[in-house]
């Protein structure tokens, strides 16, 4: 069976700076993949290229058997590729419930037979909020939320589009250990339901617990790809993180 996500020879430059070079990556259906790397190694740039926010100069991305090249970000979202942002980017003028209404209207609603009536929209947004524990804040604005609630909203919005693949870009940065466990439980629950997950994270405890496979980016190159316990013993990875 072909992989759900296939990345071949992907490169991205910003002017003279090479952010990513020759990235090859396969992610299988149902997999839990951890993506790590030092700051500035190109993790978020890779996410942006996969999701269509940035355009890669070379290489191509296949998702669910379809070529993604040239497709806009909203098209990719509708095909089942969802992402959360490293720094939460809610819609500040819309209530928490209405933040979730957007992907329900524009991702789910754009699929054949996906159009939801007013009652169904309310119900679905309510379910998602209950799932992340924000049900009592449905009518509040994102500005009223705490940091962890904001990250939960970010995940809920990504999940609302019923994705096949969810890329969680540092969904746990700055959270306390129990809050990290909350988010991990949420992601594990999603994965159980069949969603493939790419977790980008600095918190090694979370990455090691969650990931079935670990990929390491350093300075725009993929330097390791394999079982987590093997990867962290890999000499190149140790060198990248700790120096010689």
């Amino acid at each position, binding site marked *: 069976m072909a992989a759900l996500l296939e990345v071949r020879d992907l490169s991205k430059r910003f002017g003279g700076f090479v952010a990513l070079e020759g990235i090859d990556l396969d992610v299988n259906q149902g997999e839990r993949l951890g993506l790590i790397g030092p700051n500035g190694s190109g993790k978020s740039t890779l996410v942006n290229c996969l999701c269509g926010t940035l355009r890669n100069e070379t290489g191509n991305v296949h998702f669910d058997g379809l070529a993604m090249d040239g497709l806009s970000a909203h098209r990719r*979202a509708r095909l089942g590729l969802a992402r959360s942002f490293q720094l939460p980017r809610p819609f500040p003028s819309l209530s928490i419930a209405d933040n979730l209404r957007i992907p329900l209207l*524009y991702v789910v609603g754009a*699929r*054949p037979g996906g159009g939801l009536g007013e009652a169904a929209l309310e119900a679905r947004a309510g379910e998602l909020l209950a799932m992340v524990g924000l049900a009592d804040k449905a009518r509040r604005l994102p500005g009223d939320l705490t940091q962890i609630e904001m990250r939960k909203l970010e995940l809920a919005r990504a999940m609302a589009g019923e*994705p096949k693949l969810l890329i969680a870009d540092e969904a746990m940065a700055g959270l306390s250990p129990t809050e990290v466990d909350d988010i991990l439980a949420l992601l594990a629950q999603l994965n159980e339901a069949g969603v493939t997950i790419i977790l980008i994270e600095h918190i090694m405890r979370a990455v090691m617990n969650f990931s079935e496979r670990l990929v390491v980016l350093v300075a725009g190159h993929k330097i390791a790809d394999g079982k987590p316990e093997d990867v962290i013993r890999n000499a190149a990875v140790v060198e990248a993180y700790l120096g010689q």
Partner: protein
Amino acid sequence: MRRGDKGSAARENVAAPAPSAARRSATFLAAAVAVALLAFLAARSVGNDYVFFAGYVVLQYIVLATAWNILGGYTGYVNFGTAAFFAAGAYSSVVLHKLVPLPLVVHILVGGLVSGLIGLGVGYLTLRLRGVFFSIATLAMAVVMQTLITNWEFVGGSRGTYVIRPAAVPIVGDYIQYLFLVMALLAALAVWVARQIEGSRLGYGFATIRDDEVAAEASGVPTLRLKLIATTVSGAFMGMAGAPYPYYVTYLDPASGFNLAYAVNSIAMPLVGGTATWAGPVIGAILLGSIQQLATVTISSALNLLLVGVILVGFVIAAPNGIMGLLQKRRP
């Protein structure tokens, strides 16, 4: 849990609104038309034609402010070029008048079409510009269009052109009364369209563009297409407001058609009233429009923009969300 499959992304189906929503929207349209007719009857009962001349301008500003707000308030793209869209409507009316004079309603439709297409074109050309750069581009567009019209002999060039309007219209009576009635109905239509957009899928999409375009795309919102819809609808209503203008003034020159006052007022009115809902531009237009008309009669016509400026500064400092914002804050 998953429903996505291939080939589905291309389709853009609009979920049918619930019957109750459809009924509410029909009720609103009926109410808006009723208010327009009431305004007409009220103006008639005064028995002075000046009421129609002054009222027409206020109604025209309701259309312009509402149109501006569809782009500026809902999607957050500030258009400084209202005068260009307005004048495009007015001058397409002049051209029609010179070639084949048709009923006023047809002129309005043509004016709307012309300005809507200009809106679409401006949208395409300025898509990559955000914030203040978009605003500067619209201002530049207005200057370019004014130069083109000034050098177009057929519509009178810089000298301007006379448009002789019929003295009266059957049933309604005096032509100025007819113009007032038409503009009142157009205002009702514009407000209804704005309200329709607000609660719809389109309105939610517009709000996400205003809030965060990158996050909007990630949530499936086709930002490019929605921005084009906004510039087109907004431009079209501005053109429709401008189409009857030559018949109102009977003499149109570029300086009056492209008057800065249109750009300033159509921004100031929604800001004073509140940009979040359809009611804001209406309140702002009635308030500022009436004050301007009163000042013109009682003090001087040169005072208009000064008044607008002072009021706007006051609101920006004391009530940045406009009158509607103040009202909503009061609510528990």
